[in-house]
Every structure is written in C-alpha cells, then in structure tokens.
C-alpha cells in the first residue's frame, strides 16, 4: 500500500523479548515518509515497545533481546556496526510525561546540538529560535529563555520537549503518548503542531486515544497481544476495518 520509494523506516519480522516474555511477535510494518502514523491498541499490546525499538531506546533496559531487522534508509539499525547514539540523533523522541532537563529553556534546546558538535553561539541562538518557532512555543518564551524550564506549564514543557527533539533536525519523530499527561487545550495545541510538523518530518505516534489517532494520523496500526492485527489508512481502519478484532476494539467492545 505504501510505495517503496516513500518508505523511510520499516520493521521486518521483529520479535522482541523482555527476559523470557515475548512482547512483540513477528511484526512487519512500513512507515511512510512525511506522514503521521498512529499505533493504537490496549495497554501492554506492544505499541510502545515497537516505538522504542525504532530508535534503540529499548537497549537501555537490561535483559531485552531483539530478533529481526529495523531498516532505516536502507540499513539495519540493529546491525553490529551501528552505534545506537547515531540512530538516536537521526530519530528523535518525545515522551509520555514532559521531561525537560532542570536547566534553562535555552540550554534544554541546545543540549543535543552541543553534543553533536555545534558550538558557535550565533548558530545555537538561531537553532533555538527556529526550533521554538517550529514547536509554536517561541512567542510564549522568547523573553524568558534563560529561565528554568521547570517553571513552564505542562503543555509548554511538552512543546519544549518537541522543540528539543527538533533541534537535532531528526528525520523521524517518535511520540510516545505525548498528550496523555496534558489538559484538553494543551492536547489540541500539540495536535495542531503535529499537523504542521508532518510537512517536514515523519511522525510515528503511540496513543491511547482513538479519536486522537483518527484526527492526526494518515495511517494507523492496531496492535493486540504483541501482534500487528491490522495496518491501514486511518480513515479506512476507522470506518471499514478489514479485521473483526479491529472493529471490536475501535467500537469499544474490548480494550
């Protein structure tokens, strides 16, 4: 359904284990460039595990194991010669709970770029402005860049985290339930932002909120018990799903 040229990242026959527990079972899925793909399913279905697999964040958990391949721009990111640090610089991530560093707003955004070697003050300043504008936070914070990020509201903190991820100029942005800790107004702002960002970025978002998946995404994957049950265009999956289980879930019969 996705043209081969448009695939930016794909998981191929991926199995994933936490110790002896198999959290993902033979998952194969393609993600299209400059689109928003939503991953939905009940708690514990493996959707967050898959997301964290795409930038090797699961490496940080002891006792986990991956089988299969994740191909990003033609190469397997789990190949032995790949440094996970390089992967994470290209594939950014926004977490469930806003997690700005206890540093100033400015230093939050420049944290990643500085590590990757940008040190000229004017470059950093330009990057901060650009990232905050992209995350539609610039007007609210442009006068308080040197203040602690901890004093922003939850919604502002989350947009700061998005700006921080964007400052790395990633190709793909992973979002793990980015609005689940936010109020409806902040949620609406983030959803608008996602709409805006997909012009330049590929976004993969895990959400518990099916309306959110329907509103923001182009493709949706439904997971259940570690398996990808159905993967389809969003409007199709939510109106005429191919699989009975999907229909049961989106109509609220389980989950």
């Amino acid at each position, binding site marked *: 359904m996705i043209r081969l040229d448009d695939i930016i990242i794909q998981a191929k026959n991926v199995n994933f284990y936490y110790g002896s527990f198999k959290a993902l079972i033979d998952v194969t899925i393609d993600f299209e460039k400059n689109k928003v793909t939503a991953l939905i399913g009940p708690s514990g279905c493996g959707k967050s595990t898959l997301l964290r697999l795409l930038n090797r964040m699961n490496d940080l958990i002891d006792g986990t194991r991956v089988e299969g391949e994740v191909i990003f721009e033609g190469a397997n990111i789990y190949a032995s010669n790949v440094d996970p640090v390089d992967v994470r610089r290209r594939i950014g991530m926004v977490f469930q709970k806003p997690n700005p560093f*206890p540093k100033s707003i400015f230093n939050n955004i420049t944290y*990643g770029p500085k590590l990757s070697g940008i040190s000229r003050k004017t470059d950093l300043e330009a990057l901060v402005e650009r990232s905050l504008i992209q995350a539609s936070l610039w007007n609210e914070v442009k006068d308080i860049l040197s203040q602690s990020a901890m004093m922003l509201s939850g919604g502002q903190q989350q947009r700061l985290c998005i700006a921080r991820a964007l400052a790395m100029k990633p190709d793909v942005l992973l979002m793990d339930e980015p609005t689940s800790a936010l109020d409806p107004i902040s949620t609406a702002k983030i959803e608008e932002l996602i709409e805006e960002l997909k012009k330049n970025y590929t976004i993969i978002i895990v959400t518990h909120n099916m309306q959110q998946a329907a509103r923001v995404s182009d493709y949706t994957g439904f997971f259940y018990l570690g398996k990808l049950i159905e993967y389809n265009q969003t409007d199709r999956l939510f109106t005429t799903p191919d699989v009975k289980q999907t229909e049961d879930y989106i109509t609220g019969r389980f989950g």
Partner: protein
Amino acid sequence: MSRALKEKIIKNVLFLFALVSIIVLALIIIFLFMEGVPIFGVVSLKGFLFGTEWYPTYDPPEFGIWPLIVGSIVVTFFSALIAVPLGVLSAIYIAELAPPLVKEIFKPVIELLAGLPSVVLGFFGMAILAPWLQQTFDLPTGLNILNASLILALMAIPTISSIAEDALYSVPQEFKEASYALGATPFETVTKVVVPAALSGISTAVILGMARAIGETMVVLMVAGGAAAIPESIFDSVRPMPASIAAEMGEAPFRSDHYHALFATGIVLFFMTLGFNLFADYISHKFKEVGSATL
C-alpha cells in the same frame, strides 16, 4: 479501652520519648557553655581564638587555641582533597555506570568501611602508615598532617559516597531517557544531566563527610602527632581540637582554667560542625524549592 484513648496514649508516650532526647541534648549544650564560658574571665575571646600559644600547664599559662584550630582546618582540608574526589567518583560509578554484579560487591564494601571503628583505623595509621611515611620521606616522625589526612579521608569516603549515591539514584529516570534520546552517550548523560541534577545532594554529602572528619577525635589523637604549633608543611605534626580535648581532659584539674579552656575549645568545635550541618541543610533545600534550579 476505647480505640481513641489508646491512640492518644501512644501518641503521648512517643511525644515524651522525643521530648527526652531533645531535653538531654539541650542540657548537654547548656552544660558545655556553663563550663566553657568562665575561661573568658581569664583570657579575651580574641586572645583565646587567635592566640598562637597553647601552654595550659605553664606558669603563667597561655590559652591561645589558634594552632589547634589551624590543625583541625588543615587536616580536614587535606582529607577533603582526598575524600571528595574518591567518594563522589565512586558514587557516580556505582550509581550510574557499574554493571549490576560490580555494584552488588562495591556498594556493601564501601558501606562496610563506614563500620570500621575509628580506633582500628587509627591503629593502622600508627603501626603501618606512620613508619612507612617516616622511612619513605625521611622524616623525624610519621605521625603528621599527611597521615591524619589520609586516615580521616578513609573515614569520610563512605559517608560521602553513600549519601552522594542516594542523591544520584533519586534523579528521575525521565531525565536520563531524554538525554539518551537526544543522542548522548552514557558518560555524557552522567556528566551533563545526572550529576548537575543531583548537585545539591552531592554537596550535602561532601559537607556532611567533612563535618564527620572535623569532629573525629580518635584518629587525630593517634596519628596527627600532637604538636600544638602552627604547621609549616604537610609533614609537620599538629594537634587538632578534638585531640587536644581528649588528651588533656584527664589531666586538667576539675574547674581549673585549663578545664574551662578545654570546654571552650569544645564550644568552638560545636559551632564549626553546626555551621557545616546548617550549610548542608541550606544547600539541599535551596535547589529543591524551585524544582531544581537553572544550571
């Protein structure tokens, strides 16, 4: 008996116990001042603190504790030079970088070090370190500042290490994840995110470790050498305040000037450790209130 009454009795009994500990402590402090203050009828406060002659048994006696204060400060300073890097770095290693197996061994071993009686450490300093220092550096005595600093550092390391480790553990996992997701290595994450976020706790650890070193008596009594003179090199002997009190109290006649002078030395020591503790408390609260400050 009704449940409410029972609760009330328990509450009051516990209050009584808490009160007893506080009253006892207060009485000790009052006693310390009552026995110490009379010396200021013999010597002025300035003469006592900054006088450079400590000859309490001469005729006429001299009660200047400046050499003792310098002795305490010098020994504490050099032990800090050794203990702070070792304590903090070992905490960072154990909390953030060590593989689980190494952590399981290192953590209890360092905590065990805290359980070593100070007299045993002092004995080690006297019987092994002192002769070695004397021979290696060709000194008149191995009981000197360097020896005392080394042994005091050994005592302060477990305190610093375990408190700093707690501070590092309490840095939220979310900060580390955010750092890794931005392409930081484990080392960069530790130095640029975890340690800054734990800085107030680490400072507290350092200060409490130093407070422990400055008040420590047995070690300095055994290995500092006991010379009540202002030192000129780290191979000189000194007589820190606690050592002076412990060594002389037995010989000072009851309620004599010498006796009062030793209590007054105790007051000075009390204020120094109190200062350390208040400072530690201030640092650990300062950053907490703003939900971690701007770094």
